[in-house]
């Protein structure tokens, strides 16, 4: 049994009287695509934020590649290879798409206490950035201001920025949120190309995406994982059906 | 010596109470409306000037106070409706600059109407005397200020903890968007909170008028100290405002009174003469820096 790439043990996080995360154990193995699903308010984003370092858990431990990172701040985790995309698009609106990705590249290309050279002329930043943009399908939109990109393109940019940091683990918080059918399908197809060569934790509502992409699924309800397993197992699990898939089918 | 200590402690409390009146309104405006309002000091000034004007007009101290309070409230609400409403949506830089412009406006306005020299207005006989506290003869007026301030603090506590309005205020201070989402008339709430704060600032100005001089720019002198209070106490928290105000009032007053003689005995009179006043004036800022280093959110932050 190999060591998981990411392990969370006994995570707890409360906001006042509300326990958003109520004792979560999670294991994600290298190369795996692990989906986290659950009804609204289950605490999915809170969990992702604790994994990425945006929030500190009240209790519990997080291990990344065997190393304890529970107290490590967010930027340090990113530098170790933990990349995150946000549920609500979080990009640099005043910069071009290329600038956005180049900044992500810059974060992992040596130190940034360089005061003289024009960063936009640095090939070691621009070329990898262009390559990533091509990969996600935004190659011809590189010089467009991020604010002027369509919503779906902005979600693609989110992913591009995460990829540009050459992560070992991708935390994707609802990557197809707010996208139309066609756009979602394109995104899912793209994410499928990452399967296997990238370890991913995927929070999603879109069940098609989840069942297409996930190797394993964890179901989060009221801050607790009620089931973990392969997609078929989860589909068949009566507790899960009752708590979550049951609602979904009714819609 | 104890007499002096006691006297300065009371002075410190009196300053603290004045600072609290200013800080309470301002910290709520910070916390609930996320508005940096530099012109809060101007409301303090307006209160003082209106009191002088109305007291002279009516010949009565009490009438002067009540009219001045009402007047400051009106001025505050008018300013909120005309100039500040648009600023709630803007970033802090815009708020700072716009309210800075308001300060210039108000300072010159009072100078236009009342001139640039300091005004002095007398107190009625029943407030002008002294009271025997043990060996100490202490001005009645300052004790009245302390009493009024504490009474207002108690009143505020009651409103915030026991009324529906207070509940909305506390909710707004810790989560503004939620309160809006709950369908509460946010605009009205904001205006009420601002008006409250304006009245409190006006009251502070009215009470402080006879002690400190009434002149253009008087608001800014006290405003900086109010900022220190709020930073120490925590934004959005009335409890923090009270704690911070008393601490700052005490530290500042005691520092100014005792640091120089203390330095003179510990070091030398020459050092005390040069360094004493300088250090005393820096004391509350050093305190602020210390609090920030240990607890950046302040002593009693409103938010979790």
């Amino acid at each position, binding site marked *: 049994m190999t060591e998981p790439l990411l392990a969370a043990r006994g995570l707890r996080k409360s906001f006042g009287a509300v326990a958003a995360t109520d004792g979560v154990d999670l294991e994600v193995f290298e190369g795996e695509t692990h989906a986290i699903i659950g009804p609204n308010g289950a605490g999915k984003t809170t969990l992702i934020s604790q994994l990425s370092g*945006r929030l500190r858990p009240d209790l519990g431990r997080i291990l990344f590649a065997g190393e304890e990172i529970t107290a490590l701040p*967010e*930027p340090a985790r990113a530098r170790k290879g933990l*990349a995150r995309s*946000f549920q609500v698009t979080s*990009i*640099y*609106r*005043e*910069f071009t798409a290329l*600038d956005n990705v180049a*900044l992500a590249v*810059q*974060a*992992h290309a040596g130190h*940034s*206490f*360089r*005061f*003289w*050279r*024009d*960063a*936009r002329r640095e090939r070691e930043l621009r070329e990898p950035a262009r390559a990533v943009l091509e990969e996600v399908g935004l190659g011809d939109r590189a*010089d467009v201001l991020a604010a002027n990109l369509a919503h779906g393109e902005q979600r693609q940019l989110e992913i591009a*920025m995460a990829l*540009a*940091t050459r992560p070992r683990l991708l935390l994707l918080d609802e990557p197809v949120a707010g996208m139309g059918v066609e756009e979602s399908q394109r995104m899912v197809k793209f994410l499928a190309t990452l399967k296997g060569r990238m370890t991913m934790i995927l929070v999603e509502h879109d069940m098609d995406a989840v069942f297409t992409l996930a190797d394993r699924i964890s179901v989060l309800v009221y801050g607790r994982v009620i089931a973990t397993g392969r997609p078929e197992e989860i589909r068949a699990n009566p507790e899960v059906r009752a708590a979550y898939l049951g609602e979904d089918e009714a819609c | 010596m104890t007499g002096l200590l006691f006297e300065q402690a009371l002075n410190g409390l009196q300053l603290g109470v004045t600072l609290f009146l200013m800080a309470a309104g301002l910290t709520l405006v*910070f916390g609930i409306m996320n508005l940096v309002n530099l012109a809060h000091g101007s409301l303090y000034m307006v209160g003082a000037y209106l009191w002088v004007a109305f007291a002279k007009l009516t010949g009565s101290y009490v009438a002067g106070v009540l009219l001045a309070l009402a007047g400051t409230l009106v001025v505050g609400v008018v300013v909120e409706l005309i100039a500040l409403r*648009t*600023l709630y949506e803007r970033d*802090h*830089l*815009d708020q*700072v*600059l*716009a309210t*800075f*412009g*308001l*300060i*210039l*406006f108000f*300072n010159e306005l009072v100078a*236009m109407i009342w001139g640039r020299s300091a005004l002095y207005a007398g107190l009625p006989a029943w407030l002008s005397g002294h009271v025997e506290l043990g060996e100490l003869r202490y001005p009645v007026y300052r004790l009245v200020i302390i009493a009024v301030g504490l009474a207002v603090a108690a009143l505020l506590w009651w409103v915030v903890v026991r009324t529906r309005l207070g509940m909305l205020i506390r909710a707004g201070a810790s989560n503004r968007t939620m309160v809006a989402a709950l369908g509460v008339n946010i605009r009205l709430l904001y205006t009420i909170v601002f008006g409250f704060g304006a009245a409190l600032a006006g009251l502070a100005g009215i009470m402080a008028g006879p002690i400190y001089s009434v002149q253009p720019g008087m608001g*800014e002198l006290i405003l*900086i100290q109010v*900022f*220190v209070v709020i*930073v120490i106490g925590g*934004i959005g928290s009335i409890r923090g405002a009270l704690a911070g105000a008393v601490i700052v009032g005490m530290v500042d007053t005691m520092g100014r009174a005792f640091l120089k003689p203390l330095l003179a005995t510990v070091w030398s009179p020459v050092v005390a003469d*040069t360094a004493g*006043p*300088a250090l005393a*004036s*820096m004391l509350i*800022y050093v305190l602020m*820096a210390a609090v*920030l280093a240990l607890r*950046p959110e302040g002593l009693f932050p409103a938010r979790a």
Partner: protein
Amino acid sequence: MRLAPRTLALVAVLALLAAVPPVAAAFGQPFYLDLFRRIMIFAIAATSLNLILGYGGMVSFGHAAYLGVGAYAVGVLAHHGITNGFVQWALAIGGSALVALVIGAVSIRTSGIYFIMITLAFTQMLYYLGVSIEEYGGDDGMRVKTLSQFPGLLDLADPAAFYYLVLALLVAVLWVSGRLVRSRFGMVIRAAKSNEARTRAIGFSPYPYRLVAFVVAGAICGLAGALLVNHTAYLTPEFMNWTRSGELMFMVILGGTATAAGPLFGAAALLLLEDLLQGWSLLPQWVRDYWQLYLGVILVLVVLFARRGLAGLLPGGPNGDD
């Protein structure tokens, strides 16, 4: 090389500024040389503030502190007989950098409203410090009898020579600032302003970068302070008054934040406006006596309605900066 209209305007203004001394001499109006030199000194200070405020989004309400530190470094040394310009100005810059380091280290850990109030409070602390030291004039200030000496190089008492020195320094500061904001370092600062959460998520911790920017801005402003005290030949704690900080912020926003030309345009606009309101004979006396009232109203209107500032009226470069 195609230049954006905004940049062309900046170059044009600088060229015009270079022409002021001979023109002023020709018309026998030395006052204008004085006025524009003052504008340029404040433009240097405003440019330094633009670095952290305009590009960095750090609303520092205490920037005038560094004008004060720079000025006092020069004034105090002169008072004690040290008049060598190189020594004085080196200490002005170094001292400002050090003060900025201390204030920044404490303040930058905070954000939002806290940061504004803390920077303001620290500046006031320095102001009160200046006021309470009687030996250097207390709150009245004191005359600086000997200007900074640069033996063999130039004489600051020569108005035109001093003018061109300030102009040269302004150009240098603008150039350095321009390179800074385009460098890797500058991009991090600007990214942190644009979206701090995103910046942390990709792996940057904004604090060290912001602190360095704060120190650099303080140092440059210290230089402006050294220039200012030589310009006025008078040392006063009013250099550090918080209203001065407000004026600097106004210059930045009036001129247009995060633009190279903004601080210069803003400094010129504000100082010329102040001069106009106080002295233009076409204005009625009741306006001129209470000119700050009208200035206040104008400032409020600018903030509410003309947010992008003067430089914002002109198109910038393709990347959004110039």
